[in-house]
């Protein structure tokens, strides 16, 4: 009885404190909102937003609703996160492997890069790229072309855009290629388990990925054109590029800073992962006659990935959350569009800030649920 009471009382006290704090906040919020004549609710989301966003992946202007503005911001955030994750992974893996290089100069260079970029605040790096480095680029009329088709100017990067015809057929062929690769991979695995024969799965996959889409160009009526940006004079000093794809400098600065910063952390994860594999594993694999390629593919990598992937996913999450710094250089991401402009216009602080936080929270939680599932799947089964 005594021990039961001792377990219940602290719980009751904690619960009471938490409820009291929440109650206090809600009570005050109620009074404050009554005084200002605001009513809690999400009806404003369907109202006309009447503000414009500089850069948007979907069609958007002032006549669309606040909900649409939210979507624009969310997509822009996801775009930055997506590009940043790809670049930082490539860079991080290269640097992480370079840090294990037997070559002293390469190892030092990689170490200096890591120590340099991860010890400087990300916000400062974003400002540096945006206000200092990218401002040193030429004006549109003075820009030299890159391979004759792209232009890197102070107003952003102008590259050719793809103009597809029958894109869906091309897309289907890609899906077909991926499905057949999976089938072949399973077949190869069975073949190896049953008869000990090995198929060159990798070359077959690459071949399929190239040949199937190529066939659609020849027979499926798919065609691809490039639209090259052309300079156009607006006034005596105003020039602009028309056509093609234009990438705003905010996006360039943000992805550059995020990737360079996050890559240092990913590099450390990769290094730790590879270092975490004991030498005996490699030697044991070699002693049963595996080739160096097989050792890497079948012994080292599966074990190293088990160590590398969880912290790397954490870094991806950090990158996604850090992309909210976009607000500092006016890249229209979720925070700037929704928690900034929309909040200023509607004054609905509680609703908008909660929606923004919940969005980030659900991204984070869904990725960590996925991660836990993956961790359980690849964990070494021990007794």
């Amino acid at each position, binding site marked *: 009885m005594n021990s039961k009471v001792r*377990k219940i009382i*602290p*719980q*009751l006290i*904690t*619960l009471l404190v*938490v409820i009291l704090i929440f109650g*206090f*906040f809600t009570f*005050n*919020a109620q*009074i*404050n*909102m009554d*005084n200002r004549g605001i009513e809690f609710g999400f009806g404003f989301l369907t109202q006309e937003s009447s503000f414009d966003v500089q850069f948007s992946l979907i069609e958007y202007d002032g006549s669309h609703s606040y909900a649409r503005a939210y979507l624009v911001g969310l997509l822009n955030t996801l775009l930055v996160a997506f590009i940043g994750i790809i670049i930082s992974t490539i860079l991080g893996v290269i640097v992480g492997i370079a840090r294990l*290089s*037997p*070559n*002293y*100069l*390469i190892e030092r*260079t990689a170490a200096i890069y890591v*120590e*340099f970029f991860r*010890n*400087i*605040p*990300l*916000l*400062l*790096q974003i*400002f*540096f790229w945006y*206000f*200092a*480095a990218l*401002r*040193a680029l030429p004006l549109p009329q003075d820009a030299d072309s890159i391979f004759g088709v792209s232009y890197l100017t102070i107003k952003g990067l102008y590259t050719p855009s793809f103009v597809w015809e029958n894109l869906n057929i091309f897309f289907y062929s890609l899906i077909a290629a991926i499905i057949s690769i999976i089938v072949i991979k399973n077949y190869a695995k069975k073949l190896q388990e049953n008869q000990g024969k090995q198929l060159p799965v990798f070359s077959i996959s690459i071949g399929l990925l190239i040949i199937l889409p190529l066939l659609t160009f020849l027979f499926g009526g798919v065609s691809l054109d490039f639209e090259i940006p052309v300079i156009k004079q607006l006034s005596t000093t105003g020039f602009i590029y028309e056509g093609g794809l234009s990438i705003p400098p905010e996006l360039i600065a943000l992805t550059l800073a995020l990737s360079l910063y996050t890559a240092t952390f990913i590099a450390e994860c990769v290094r730790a992962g590879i270092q975490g594999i004991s030498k005996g594993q490699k030697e044991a694999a070699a002693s049963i006659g595996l080739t160096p390629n097989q050792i890497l593919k079948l012994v080292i990598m599966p074990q190293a990935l088990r160590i590398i992937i969880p912290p790397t996913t954490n870094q991806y999450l950090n990158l996604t*959350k*850090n992309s*909210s*710094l976009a*607000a*500092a250089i006016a890249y229209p991401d979720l*925070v700037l569009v929704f*928690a900034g402009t929309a*909040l200023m216009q509607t004054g609905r*602080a*509680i609703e908008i*800030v*909660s929606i*923004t*936080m919940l969005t*980030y*929270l659900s*991204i*984070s*939680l869904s990725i960590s649920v996925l991660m836990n599932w993956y961790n359980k799947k690849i964990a070494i089964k021990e007794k």
Partner: protein
Amino acid sequence: MNKLNFLKPDNQNVSTYLYTGSFLFFIAVFDVFLSSFFKINITSFLPNILSFLLPLIIGVIGLHLIRIEFSGIKNLDLLNKNINTNNFNAVLTLLIIFIIIKSIPPIMSWFILDANIAGDTKEACTGSGACWTYIKIWLNRFIYGMYPNELQWRINISFILLIALAFVGLIPSEKLKKFLTLYYVVIYPILAFILIYYLISGGSLGLEWVETGAWGGLSLTFIVSFFCLIFCFPVGMFLALGRRSELPTVRYISVGFIEFWRGVPLITVLFMSSVMFPMFLPEDFFMDKLVRVIIAISLFEAAYVAEVIRGGLQALPRGQYDAAKSLGMGYWKLHIFVILPQALKLVIPGIANTFLALVKDTPLIFVVGLLELVGMLNLAKTNPKWLGFAMEGYVFAAIIFWIICYAMSKYSYNLELKYKTER
């Protein structure tokens, strides 16, 4: 004399290979050196692309020739082992050497040779390099923000006192040693708060009141990181214990709290503290925005500290708990004297990383209108008298932050070594 086989250098003719190889390598480096420092291209008679690639080709041949296995020369073997194991490595080595040589002149000229520091107007900056005059003139603002010039001694004195108080822990005798933790965890923060409240903020004791909006620059960076650091640690510790607790209510509340703060970006937390939080307070209740920011950042970082400490708690073997319980220790005694000292020792690197992240996050307080170092830079950058010196400002701030963060990470590394115990 043996036949020379240039495709596969061996240790028969070491000196021949060595001299030819080093000569070629030297030529390659010399060519790049000349073109970089003196703008002389000694191979300009060749076609453009060949002249550009020649040093690399010559260098690779040179390195190939000196790659002699078991040459019998100790230094050569060491060199080959470290930078010259195969052709691919040789190419990378050369590229790195060339890039270093190429980048020295422009960096030197920007930083020192063509830079200006004399004078006190924009016009003094005539060189093509950096304008350190800008930093010199604005240095006061970068350190003290908008704090009135004649009152800046107050910031200086409180910082000196704070540092002095931090070293008090080194003095006392064995007798007082057991109060050290109490001193650092409870008394020191209170003293620090009193100092900052009465000396920097003022408003009483005959000192003029300076509103927090005027605080700024590097001193604000220090104040914010200092207080957040002090507050986030105990909160994080309690959260970690809560998450490991046997009581379901306590555990779920801790988990919810930790996961919430870890799932949202700091910038939205600051938004919340500035626009949403005032709605939750009674109408006549006013909380300074600096205090709000410090609370917000502390709670945010506390969640991260909690996860780090939880890692340490989980790493301890069950035997420690059982042994302590068998001695009749209760929950708090067990944790304070047995578990936490060991767990905290284990997680020093993780905590140091969290603190580093905290220092690097302080610039974000620009969201609520507080201007620490980076914020002041952005303000100075838009001053019409000093347009166009963004680069100098950011480089200056980057150097300062880098020194702070690097020193912290080295210090934590030393701590880790100092407290490392064999298990």
